[in-house]
């Protein structure tokens, strides 16, 4: 489903450059739930951004669903992001002057679907995250956990192949974190492939596989026994 080979990335800092990713090899199969762990500066976010086509690698190959991802123009990247990927951010990144349902419908807007169709699908996904009754509320009228659930509904709306989560529980308290993780696990149970960046060990243990990064290389890549989040709630 996802295959990365010999990936390198460096950022220019003044005259010198910072080598962030030093040859990453990673492949993820369909239905996996992978946590990418590492301390700050280990390159985990950069890796996620490259996978999310928000950033481009200097060297190496990246194939997503048998489509080689290279030489991306902004437009092509936008289309691929829309078609293949769903993003969940640490700070939710909902658009604050749009209601929950409008936020969820946004990716569908950029797919060119008509309004009725969009709202219908968005309501369906909001229902899935249990926020059907909150559809007409603005983000600032929702709690942190609700916001993240709206963000997840938005990530799911375009029915992406791969869900990318950047510290999805980073801004939430423990109880809410576990609720969100429980929901993400249920998505994985339905067959969604999920890739998340986290630095919390207990959150990582709720995935099926942990990839540990340090100084731009993969230190450890192990399959783990998934801890069900429902056990904590």
């Amino acid at each position, binding site marked *: 489903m996802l295959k990365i080979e010999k990936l390198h990335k460096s950022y220019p800092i003044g005259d010198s450059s910072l080598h962030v990713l030093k040859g990453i090899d990673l492949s993820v199969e369909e239905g996996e739930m992978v946590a990418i762990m590492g301390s700050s500066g280990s390159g985990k976010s950069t890796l996620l951004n490259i996978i*999310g086509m928000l950033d481009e690698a200097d060297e190496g190959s990246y194939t997503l669903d048998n489509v080689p991802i290279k030489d991306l123009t*902004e437009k092509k990247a*936008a*289309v691929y992001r829309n078609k293949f990927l769903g*993003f969940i*951010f640490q700070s939710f990144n909902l658009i604050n*002057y749009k209601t929950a349902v409008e936020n969820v419908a946004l990716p569908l807007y*950029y*797919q060119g679907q008509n*309004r009725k169709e969009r709202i219908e699908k968005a309501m369906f996904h909001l229902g899935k995250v249990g926020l059907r009754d909150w559809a007409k509320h603005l983000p600032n009228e929702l709690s942190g956990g609700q916001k993240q659930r709206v963000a997840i509904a938005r990530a799911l709306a375009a029915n992406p192949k791969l869900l990318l989560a950047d510290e999805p529980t980073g801004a939430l308290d423990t109880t809410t974190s576990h609720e969100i993780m429980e929901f993400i696990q249920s998505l994985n149970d339905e067959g969604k492939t999920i890739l998340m960046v986290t630095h919390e060990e207990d959150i990582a243990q709720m995935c099926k596989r942990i990839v540990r990064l340090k100084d731009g290389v993969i230190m450890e890549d192990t399959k783990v026994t998934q801890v069900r989040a429902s056990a904590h709630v």
Partner: protein
Amino acid sequence: MKFLFDRDTWQEVYDSLTKNKLRSILTMVGVWWGILLLIGLLGSARGLENSFNRLFGSFATNSVFVWGQSTGMPFKGFQEGRQVQLSLSDAIKIEENVEGIEFVVPRNITRSLVVHGFLSGTFGVYGDYPLLDQVQKKKMQYGRFINQNDIDDNKKVVVISESIYKQLFEKDAEAIGEYIQINGINFKIIGMFANDNMSGGPRADMHIPFTTFQQVYNQGDRIGWMMITGKPEFDIRQLERDAKLLLKNLNNIHPEDKRAFGSFNLGKEFGKLTGFLTGMQFLTWFVGIATLIAGVFAIGNILLITVKERTKEIGVRRALGATPFEIKRQIVVEAVFITLVAGLLGIISGGWILILIDKLAGQGPDATLVNASVSIAIVFVALIILIILGTLIGLIPAFKATSVKPIDALREE
């Protein structure tokens, strides 16, 4: 073009503008003021032009008046200081020989005692041809002007002005068909005309047939002065020179003599006036458009700030699959929308200003600004200019918005 009819496009525009009401309003003020100024100034300029036209409306403006004075140089045995008397044959020769002449109207005037019953007064009496009505349109209220029949038969008929009527007749008395005595001779009133705004000479009191005038006042071939009108495509100053040279030739006057004929060139004066009006209109356009451009730049400036503030939102949109084109389009639509709304408000309030001007300065016969207005075509031109400027200025923030990579935009706090 489908996106223009999409509710979401407008929802986005509405949201982003209402989120910052004060800023949106301040932005719009620039363009609103520009178009208000343009409409107000253009309307006033038009009003001024109309009022001049009304003043000269009944008058052939491409014309010159010529009368005889006394010679300033000796010539062909004549001493200087000789009185120059124009004659009917001079008028006929000018009409026949000078190129570009439309009409030559010989005229006479004298002052006479006019009596009607117990009322009397001394008024200017003109001897005129029917032609006068063509170069200096009389607004007839009752009856008719002098016609060729009156000329041919030396009829004793008179056309009087409204003010004469008021002085010689009781209120509401019938004047047409009545007789008045001029110089002791009865004349039948055949018409009455409204007082003129502009008469070109002494106040127009009453007109009698030219031939009758010759007879009654024993004028023979002599004429007081003549009014020469040129065809529109001919330069009236050249006509004046040609006519005067011919007159000097006919009357044994030195060709260089500047004093022999007096003249008033209405065409030349009118030309100065229209030149002034054209200049004023140019100035109006210049000021209006310059203000508009300043206003549009203000919009560009504000949108630039807005885009900066919305960097993160734009990053999110792009992560969700918005192409750079879609982002740019949205911002340009916003720019055009805001300019257009401000422009329309400006046009509407400009219209109100013109209504106000009309109320204050556009009423009555002596109005300084007559029918101050702007043509629909000009309004459309202004709107199209606005749309073009709005689009161009919107492109700057649009490109700014997509110049940031989505990854950097998302990192923005």
